[in-house]
């Protein structure tokens, strides 16, 4: 992997300097704080609105707060991952920076991998920030929850987000337009989320990783290993294909 270190350093600096870490971190932190907050104070907010209609809202639970957070992060995260990664390669090709870098002694694989590592780092840091905030607020506002289950859930969310980034990077390598890359990536990712609803194969697509949340948090056994392995393999395949494509195509 020639040049991986230098490329990774540059990519990480780019994430920082172009405020990606700040934006994604802020976004996830926002959901981490507001999810338990809203659950807790929703009844009172409704009361304040002065409606006399009595709506029976059961008292919020920790499971509810933590799973809701994970659910929101998955939805927002897919979109954020696509937005962050769609231009990562396509824009470098368009602006000519890819030609500058790839005419140097660096491997195409290192080029793709450095982007996946750096953007994954941003999302994992952001997720950690949001998750810690969510857990702290849930415990202090609602009740204490299953920390290890929540950790496991977040690891699955992290893996899923890395997968989303890898898919988007693949299309970013394939197309010259970042908008097209983003559109196709989003369609693919939403498409596989739909697949989770299907019987049998639904349990094995990457989207199923984030469908186990309730089981995880309530301590029920869940067979998630197949889909963890499949998602990891698909992520690696995306990187490999993106690099292979960059070798074949004109930069």
């Amino acid at each position: 992997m020639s040049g991986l270190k230098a490329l990774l350093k540059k990519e990480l600096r780019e994430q920082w300097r172009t405020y990606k870490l700040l934006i994604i971190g802020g976004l996830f932190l926002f959901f981490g704080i507001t999810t338990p907050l809203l659950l807790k104070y929703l009844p009172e907010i409704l009361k304040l609105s002065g409606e006399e209609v009595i709506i029976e809202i059961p008292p919020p639970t920790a499971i509810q707060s933590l799973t809701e957070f994970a659910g929101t992060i998955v939805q927002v995260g897919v979109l954020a991952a696509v937005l962050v990664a769609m231009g990562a390669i396509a824009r470098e090709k368009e602006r000519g920076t890819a030609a500058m870098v790839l005419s140097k002694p660096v491997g195409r694989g290192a080029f793709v991998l450095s982007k996946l590592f750096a953007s994954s780092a941003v999302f994992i840091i952001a997720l950690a920030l949001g998750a810690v905030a969510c857990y702290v607020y849930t415990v202090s506002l609602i009740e204490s929850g299953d920390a290890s289950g929540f950790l496991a859930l977040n690891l699955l969310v992290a893996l899923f987000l890395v997968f989303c980034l890898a898919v988007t990077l693949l299309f970013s390598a394939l197309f010259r337009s970042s908008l097209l890359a983003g559109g196709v990536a989003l369609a693919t990712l939403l498409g596989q989320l739909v697949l989770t609803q299907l019987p049998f194969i639904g349990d094995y697509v990457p989207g199923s990783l984030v469908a186990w949340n309730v089981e995880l948090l309530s301590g029920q056994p869940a067979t998630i290993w197949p889909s963890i392995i499949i998602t990891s393999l698909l992520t690696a395949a995306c990187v490999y294909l993106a690099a292979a494509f960059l070798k074949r195509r004109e930069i």
Partner: protein
Amino acid sequence: MEAIETKALSKRYGDVLALDGLDLTVKEGSVFGFLGPNGAGKTTTVKLLTGLSQPTSGRAWVAGEEVTPRAVSFRSKIGYLPDVPGFYGWMTGREFLLFTGELFGLPPSENGKHSDELLELVDLRKAGKRKVGGYSRGMRQRLGIAQALVNRPRVLFLDEPTSALDPVGRREVLELISRLKEESTIFMSTHILSDVERVCDTLGIIDQGRLVTVASVEELRRRYAPSVIELQFDEDAAPILPLLEGQPWLEKVESVLSNGLPTIRIKARDVVIAKTEVPRLVAQSGLPLLRYEVKMPSLEDIFVELVSGGGGL
């Protein structure tokens, strides 16, 4: 040793044959001008030689190694300036050079010093601290040259290095290129003839994907556009025409009026003989000669003649 060698190198984009069987050798230490009109296949060739694109058929060697998109090691011996160099707008000029040095695996201490030297060389010492996003076109071009020199390349590829610059910027870049030729073999693609005349010692002309000719500038002048000898007389020049017409070295003679004076234009098949014979014939004719001039063809004349399909090989 050859710095660049290609064998039947071809590139096809769909129906378009962008490069058609290029056979080319560039000697080490030369400044090779790759000349052709827009769309002739110049950038395609440079991309193939730098491994940024794969040939449809044929092979290429640069600095003794075969070029493929997978071959990483030959790229540490080349420098490349694309026709439109792209930079990360969030980096400063100096940071971009440092980043480039890191890609080449230069040790950090050497990298910093070398980057400063390069900024000095391309006259960006002050601007090196500013973000590239705010650079002018000329500054970006100079930074592009600097980044192509980071690894002290054995072969330097410059794709249209002057086309987007104003006259002052062009002169600066050309002077820079002249200075670089001591260290590297330079392969420079361009459509600007005067650039080639100023810095290149060898010239390849490409048109519609085919290499039309390779020669030195002088050789090209000698070979392709035969010199024209112009004679101007005080009075009617007709008496000299019969003397000229029988000569074996003559290709064409015409009688015209130039500035109101009778003028004879002689196009010779063999200029060397013509130059000795014409004065003798003038003396023989006894006409009062006003002016005798051997007109050298401009490179532009040759270029237009070659690429317009007039007098190719």
